[in-house]
């Protein structure tokens, strides 16, 4: 393979830059930062794309960013190279999310991209895998050797290592341990593990866990189910118990009801008999003219009036008889009245002569004797007094006491009074005297009439007056009685007329009711009344029957009970109300329990679905466990295969290492001009060299930089040739910085020689390479990069 043309459309600092290289030795010279590394990176990028290998996800390497153009636009380029006597062009767009890669046959223009399928395991095809048949790491180890990479590098790729083991052990057959192991690992990875969250394996494990968790929940719910089943059975037991009790009570009730019906039957039967008898009775009663109560009342009233009138007449008759009797008893004489009046005149004249009539004149006077004594006493004084005055007057006169003289003169006045008094008293005494004389005379007169004293006279007068007044009264009575008799007679006649009239009327009306008297009418009325009462009783009885029968028909009852002569009274007949209450209570309990039962059954039906879920999960888990078991088996088998292959590979390495070391040693000896001829590479590709002077095996990193680089370079060259990379270009970037003049000359000489079969491209910033190469007088393609 030979590179022909690098076309950097827009890459790093280059824009539309084209670099053509020769088949042989190319020396590309440029100052630092002139773009040498960029060019080399371009080659890498074109073939391997700056994408982390072996991962599906696109992860960009640092270079991607490093060579992205400043404007980030049009990040692309192409490369043309000779491959198996044809010309190939690779066109690549690097820009993120616009990545594109096309491979063309440069001569025919045919797009051969699809021929490169499966080159590299990234999303974008990496043509390096196809054209170099190696990964990026190996490519960098054996084809494109970078400045820093030439130094100690134990990380010679696995692929390289494998190449080497194949090279020596598989008889030209390209057995790829590494690929095999990678494939096995990949296969394992595809199955996954508990750690790989997106893997099938992990998903199954997770699903198993989820299912198990759910199964545990179901287990708990099933306990509830069992609990509910138990509860349900308990309720059912209770219900059946209750129903039994209820049945008992209901049976009692049924008997009570039967009994009640029986009683009803009996009552109804009795009533019906009564009704029949009443009906019969009423039917037998004739239907007369209807006598109303008013009629009867009216007739009775009339009759009563007649009676009253009769009674009145009787009273009148009796009174008349009585008066007549009285009239017969009264003694009345007109002559006697005249006689009495004469007698009275005589007696009353006598009474007027009675002195006692004047007695009033003396009634206030002192008794006669007392008056006469007083006169005597006054007479005495009338003698004594003039003597006393003459004596005192002569005495006074002589004594000159005039006062007493005069005073004694007053006694004369007194004397006069006494004289007056004496005359009054005498008059009075005369009066009394006269009265007494009259009295004597009057008594004599009375005696003549056989009367003792005046009182008798007066009695006689009173007696006569009394007789007279009685006679007058009798006269008045007779008059009055005669008047009364007349009056009564009148009244009697009027009543009698009235009576007869009413009597006639009554008789006339009674004829209408076909009776001849009131008594019969009353009788008729009573009969009528009786019938009405019976009809009423009939109606009430019928209603009562209806009430008693309620909705039953007597015929039914009769059918039911007609044969039964006696039914025992139910035991609980008295407690019927309690029974009804108990039935209600029990029925309520039953309803409650049934409600509960139906709830439980509802829950049971819902929970019941868990059983299907459980079966489903158990079966699913069986399937999943089975799958896991299969996966585990496969993983174990793969692990076993990997272990075995690794172990065998190690064993092989131990076998091929001496031969490999010998061949590499020869190459190194040639490059180092015989200085180092013994190289030892351990299985980790750690390199040691035999220091010829001391004959001691020294680890590569203990040597000087120049020596390390030289040996490394030789090693890589040797490896490159050993793995058959000599048909590919050799690209070297500043690999000889630490080389001394002599070593560089040797190296360049070798490279010059190699360039006959293999395209060699050397990047450098030193001019000594050109100088030394010029010494070989070979044709070299010298390209100078200028820092624009």
């Amino acid at each position, binding site marked *: 393979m030979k590179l022909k043309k690098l076309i950097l459309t827009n890459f790093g600092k280059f824009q539309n830059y084209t670099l053509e290289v020769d088949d042989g030795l190319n020396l590309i010279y440029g100052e630092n930062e002139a773009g040498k590394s960029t060019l080399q990176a371009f080659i890498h990028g074109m073939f391997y794309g700056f994408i982390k290998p072996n991962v599906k996800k696109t992860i960009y390497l640092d270079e991607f960013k490093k060579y992205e153009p400043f404007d980030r636009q049009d990040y692309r380029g192409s490369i043309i190279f000779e491959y198996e006597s044809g010309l190939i062009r690779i066109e690549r767009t690097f820009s993120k999310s616009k990545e594109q890669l096309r491979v063309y046959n440069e001569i025919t223009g045919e797009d051969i991209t699809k021929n490169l399928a499966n080159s590299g395991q990234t999303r974008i095809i990496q043509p390096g895998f196809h054209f170099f048949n190696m990964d990026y790491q190996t490519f960098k180890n054996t084809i494109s050797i970078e400045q820093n990479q030439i130094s100690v590098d134990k990380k010679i790729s696995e692929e390289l290592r494998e190449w080497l083991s194949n090279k020596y052990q598989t008889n030209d057959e390209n057995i790829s341990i590494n690929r095999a192991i990678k494939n*096995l690992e990949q296969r394992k990875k595809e199955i996954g593990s508990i750690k790989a969250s997106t893997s099938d394996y992990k998903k199954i494990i997770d699903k198993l866990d989820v299912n198990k968790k759910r199964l545990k929940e179901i287990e708990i719910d099933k306990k509830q189910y069992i609990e509910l089943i138990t509860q349900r059975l308990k309720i059912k037991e209770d219900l059946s118990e209750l129903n039994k009790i209820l049945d008992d009570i209901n049976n009692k009730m049924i008997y009570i009801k039967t009994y009640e019906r029986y009683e009803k039957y009996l009552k109804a039967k009795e009533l019906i008999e009564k009704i029949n008898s009443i009906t019969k009775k009423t039917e037998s009663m004739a239907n007369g003219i209807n006598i109303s109560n008013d009629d009867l009342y009216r007739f009775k009233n009339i009759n009563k009036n007649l009676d009253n009138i009769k009674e009145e007449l009787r009273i009148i008759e009796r009174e008349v008889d009585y008066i007549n009797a009285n009239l017969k008893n009264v003694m009345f004489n007109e002559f006697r009245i005249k006689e009495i009046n004469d007698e009275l005149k005589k007696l009353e004249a006598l009474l007027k002569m009675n002195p006692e009539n004047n007695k009033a004149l003396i009634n206030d006077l002192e008794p006669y004797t007392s008056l006469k004594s007083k006169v005597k006493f006054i007479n005495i004084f009338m003698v004594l007094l003039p003597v006393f005055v003459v004596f005192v007057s002569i005495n006074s006169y002589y004594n000159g006491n005039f006062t007493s003289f005069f005073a004694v003169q007053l006694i004369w006045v007194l004397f006069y009074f006494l004289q007056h008094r004496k005359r009054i008293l005498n008059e009075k005494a005369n009066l009394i005297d006269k009265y007494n004389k009259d009295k004597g005379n009057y008594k004599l007169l009375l005696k003549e009439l056989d009367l003792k004293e005046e009182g008798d006279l007066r009695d006689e007068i009173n007696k006569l007056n009394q007789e007279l007044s009685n006679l007058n009264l009798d006269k008045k009575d007779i008059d009055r009685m005669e008047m009364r008799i007349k009056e009564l007679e009148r009244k009697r006649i009027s009543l009698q007329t009235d009576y007869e009239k009413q009597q006639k009327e009554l008789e006339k009306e009674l004829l209408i009711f076909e009776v001849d008297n009131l008594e019969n009418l009353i009788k008729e009325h009573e009969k009528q009344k009786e019938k009405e009462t019976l009809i009423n009783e009939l109606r009430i009885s019928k209603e009562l029957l209806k009430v008693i029968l309620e909705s039953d028909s007597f015929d039914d009852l009769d059918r039911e009970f007609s044969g039964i002569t006696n039914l025992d009274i139910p035991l609980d007949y008295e407690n019927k109300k309690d029974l009804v209450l108990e039935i209600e209570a029990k029925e309520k309990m039953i309803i409650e329990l049934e409600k509960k039962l139906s709830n439980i059954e509802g829950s049971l*039906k819902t929970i019941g679905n868990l059983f299907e879920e459980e079966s489903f999960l158990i079966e*699913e888990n069986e399937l999943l466990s089975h799958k896991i078991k299969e996966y585990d*088996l496969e993983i174990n088998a793969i692990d076993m295969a990997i272990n*075995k292959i690794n172990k*065998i590979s190690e064993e092989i390495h131990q076998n091929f290492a001496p031969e490999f070391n010998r061949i590499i040693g020869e190459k190194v000896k040639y490059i180092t001009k015989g200085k180092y001829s013994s190289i030892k590479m351990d299985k980790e590709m750690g390199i040691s060299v035999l220091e010829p002077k001391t004959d001691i095996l020294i680890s590569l990193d203990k040597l000087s930089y120049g020596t390390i680089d030289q040996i490394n370079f030789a090693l890589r060259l040797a490896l490159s040739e050993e793995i058959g990379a000599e048909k590919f270009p050799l690209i070297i970037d500043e690999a000889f910085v630490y080389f001394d003049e002599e070593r560089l000359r040797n190296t360049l000489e070798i490279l010059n020689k190699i360039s006959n079969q293999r395209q060699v491209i050397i990047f450098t910033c030193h001019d000594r390479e050109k100088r030394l190469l010029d010494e070989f007088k070979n044709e070299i393609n010298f390209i100078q990069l200028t820092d624009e």
Partner: protein
Amino acid sequence: MFKFIHTGDIHLGSKFKNSHFGGEIGSIRRREIWETFEKLIDKVKSENIEVLLIAGDLFENDSFTFKDFFRLKGLFERILSTKVVIISGNHDIVSNRSFYTTEKWPDNVIIIGENGLENIYFEDLNLNIYGFGWDKLTIKNTNLLSQIKIKENSTNILILHGDETEDYLNLNINEIKSLNFDYVALGHIHKPKFIYDNIAYCGSLEPLDISETGERGYIEGTIGDENTFKFIPFAKRKYIKKKIDISAEMNYFDVINLVKNDSENCNLDFLILEINGIRAKDFEINIIKEYLQREYFYVEIIDNTILDFDLRELKNKYENTLIQYYIDSFTEEELKEELFRKSLYIGLSTLLEGIE
């Protein structure tokens, strides 16, 4: 003359243990067991079958739910003129909590033998049925048969659930035979089998375990002048077990043709295919499965094939290379184990990838 149907081992609510159906197919199958049983009830109804005998394991106590019971009850209520005689089996043993005792069954359902051997006489059919139900998980020697005395001048049928093994009633078929029943309806063994003309296992109504291959159905009997007993296939699906031998030269279609050599209609059936022989390295069993799944309801393949590697030749060809060493790292003894065998072929295939 009357007709009866003898069924049993219906296992309503069954779980499909040890089958790798997965839940979906399990659910479908559980529904289908109901479906087929319901169809049987339809048949009993439409053909006015006089007696339906269920010889145990009508349902599974563990997973038969309350809801299921009412569904079942509803079914029996559809055939009220049919006498349904049930005995319990070892999966639906009678206990004080089982539906047999706690629930009221329709009047036409008679559960017999709940408390030991029991007989019931149907006057209208002059039919005497002896039955024995299970009330514990295993029932050993019971001396059951010695208690039986058939009713002369009647039709006598015996229902039992068990087999000749010790834990399951320890039935002695000869002894049963000697009892001279007109018919003995047996349950417990899921494969239908006439031991004598008139002594038979009806088998399960639908195949349950994946190993239950072959026809499944019920037995229809006619009692009359001449008694006849006949197995009627009735299951919705069959489990078909096939065993084929393939060689490395065969392509997928060759193998498919080998499986499907007859033109049977099998899209309802389960196929359990055992493949033996040598298969080509790029021959994938899964593709065979894919093809077969178009034809069958469910396909399970038991892959006993070995890849087409001639180990001796490979060892010769790749002498002194990784391949020879790899093959040699497995001893013959180890290769008898699946793990080692698998490991060998996985490793070998990978190593040879891109070479051969």
